[in-house]
């Protein structure tokens, strides 16, 4: 049916870490008196002194801290940001890691001399200029693992009723690289793992091809994209689109992928089949304050409404709409907001809700007219994750999470027809990602405030718009996601937790656990059918 072709790619799930969240864990540190550690490691071999510190940084740290030392999902490490900091304190932080964050302990992985050398190197290296990564570099980076795709099996090689039942989890691996870094695929009916794709560095985003259920695309922290054959559970190709950056979208016809980077400041359209780059875009523009800036790539999203991609330019505060036709022309929508980040679609993909961190708003954009409709209050530092929308009593309600590092910790609920705020639901702390399903009674949000609350998710009743339950997941609980049938709620117990926990959506009883290292984003294959989590597949049918 024609409908299949118009399925939408994804909700724009964006950086799963939080850029530069840096509240110190004073309480926990003092509990074990780590601040006082002065570890006598001087005795270790001195042979490492010749090692290239830059390489050591690139190989161990850059995937989180940014290839340009300017920060990515972790803060920038450079002469400016580390000015005046005690080398001993930095050394002990690198050895033990930072508790309850993604910063891993390098004790035993790097020698003491390497750690000392790194501290010196970081405290003397300025943030690097935006490195170049051209269309030729991208082309040359393509790796082919399966030469002849016609040899691939015609059907899944495992038992599954519908490919929609497949759930993918971005397992980061403790160190953001290594054997723990992979995309793990689970059958969301049986809660059993059906396959895993090693990704070298932390998997960050998983997206599915709306036109052909066999293909998934996995993007890593270091901006590689793996084209994955879900039927045989293997990577068939990969390409490196930049150095860091999670932005990834697939067009509704499944023919194009668009990827965007933090380092360097560019985006690229790829052939979804071969991963060949077709066109690159320099991300720059005049920001809402009138300044010309070079910009990180924010969310990228394909829409079931049209053959387009929308991409948010974080620093320039613009949304660009790219038409998927000869030359890939761009329409620029300016003054969307300060520090744009992620977004979600509504109304058959004709409306885009974009979060602006620094303005505390979500801006509704009409993708048909390519104009701003309205700016809506969105709590404190809105991070809408993949967004969620549900139909309740004839209204379509959107749910927006936010870091909420100020006093106001609320989840915003908007009427997406009238484009107005319906309610700001008080929750226990800052939130990062909502999950909803047409068949499930609750909207789940992950509390990320840096204390015990980070182990919990809260459930908001769709009808009363009140929090009705708090679940302690264990580990840093984040990125809730419903199975395609809405019967189960998956949650990552990440950071030092090492499992994905599964709940019954109605009883909220724990029903299963799937072990993996530092799980983060969870992506149901069902998303290609319901566009934005919580909507029914009919929403897309109504698109045209």
């Amino acid at each position: 049916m024609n409908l299949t072709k118009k399925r939408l790619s994804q909700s724009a799930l964006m950086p799963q870490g939080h850029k530069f969240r840096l509240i110190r864990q004073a309480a926990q540190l003092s509990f074990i008196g780590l601040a006082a550690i002065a570890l006598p490691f001087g005795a270790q071999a001195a042979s490492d002194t010749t090692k290239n510190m830059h390489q050591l940084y690139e190989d161990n740290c850059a995937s989180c801290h940014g290839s340009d030392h300017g920060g990515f999902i972790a803060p920038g490490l450079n002469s400016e940001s580390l000015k005046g900091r005690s080398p001993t304190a930095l050394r002990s932080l690198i050895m033990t890691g930072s508790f309850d964050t993604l910063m891993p302990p390098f004790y035993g992985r790097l020698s003491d001399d390497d750690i000392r050398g790194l501290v010196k190197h970081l405290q003397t290296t300025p943030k690097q200029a935006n490195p170049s990564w051209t269309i030729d570099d991208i082309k040359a980076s393509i790796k082919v693992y399966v030469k002849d795709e016609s040899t691939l099996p015609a059907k899944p090689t495992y038992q599954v009723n519908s490919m929609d039942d497949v759930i993918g989890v971005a397992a980061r691996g403790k160190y953001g690289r290594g054997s723990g870094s992979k995309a793990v695929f689970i059958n969301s009916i049986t809660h059993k793992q059906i396959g895993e794709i090693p990704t070298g560095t932390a998997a960050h985003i998983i997206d599915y091809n709306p036109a052909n259920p066999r293909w998934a695309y996995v993007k890593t922290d270091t901006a590689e994209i793996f084209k994955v054959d879900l039927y045989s559970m293997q990577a068939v190709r990969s390409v490196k689109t930049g150095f860091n950056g999670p932005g990834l979208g697939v067009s509704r016809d499944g023919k194009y992928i668009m990827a965007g980077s933090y380092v360097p400041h560019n985006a690229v359209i790829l052939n979804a089949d071969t991963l060949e780059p077709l066109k690159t875009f320099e991300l720059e523009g005049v920001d809402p304050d009138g300044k010309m800036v070079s910009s990180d790539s924010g969310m990228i999203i394909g829409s079931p409404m049209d053959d387009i991609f929308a991409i948010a330019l974080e620093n320039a505060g613009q949304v660009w709409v790219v038409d998927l036709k000869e030359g890939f022309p761009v329409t620029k929508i300016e003054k969307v907001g300060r520090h744009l980040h992620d977004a979600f679609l509504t109304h058959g993909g004709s409306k885009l809700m974009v979060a602006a961190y620094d303005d505390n708003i979500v801006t509704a954009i009409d993708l048909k007219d390519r104009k701003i409709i309205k700016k809506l209050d969105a709590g404190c530092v809105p991070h809408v994750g993949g967004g969620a929308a549900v139909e309740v009593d004839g209204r379509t309600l959107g749910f927006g999470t936010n870091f909420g590092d100020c006093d106001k910790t609320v989840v915003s609920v908007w009427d997406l027809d009238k484009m107005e705020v319906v309610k700001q639901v008080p929750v226990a702390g800052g939130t990062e990602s909502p999950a909803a399903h047409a068949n499930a009674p609750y909207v789940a949000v992950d509390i990320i405030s840096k204390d015990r609350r980070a182990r919990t998710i809260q459930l908001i009743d769709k009808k009363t718009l009140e929090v009705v339950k708090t679940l302690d997941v264990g580990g840093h609980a984040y990125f809730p996601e419903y199975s395609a049938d809405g019967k189960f709620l998956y949650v990552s117990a990440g950071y030092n937790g090492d499992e994905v926990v599964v709940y019954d959506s109605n009883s909220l009883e724990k029903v299963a656990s799937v072990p993996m290292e530092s799980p983060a984003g969870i992506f149901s294959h069902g998303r290609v059918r319901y566009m934005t989590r919580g909507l029914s597949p009919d929403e897309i049918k109504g698109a045209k």
Partner: protein
Amino acid sequence: MRLAIYSGLLLLGLASVQSADAASIYAGEAKAAAVCSQCHGIRMPSADAPFPPLAGRDQEYLKTALKQYRDKTRKSDIMNAIAGSLSDDDINNIASYYAKLKP
């Protein structure tokens, strides 16, 4: 599956020793989750990490090891520093938490 077994154990603990034990598991859990899991993981350490696993280990062994680290009869720069500030209660709680956890 794993979880069902784990919570079964927890319940047994609760039934037999009553709330004192529940509190200690909880206290142990809080500290283990906040601090020890950074290196040892909760159920398992990272496959790439040089840290020994703790989940499901013998409770007495864990207690003894922690006390030895604390009084430095067992030497490890890092564990001596970490165990140095643990009280007897902390050690009991953490050991009982990790011992009851299925790896």
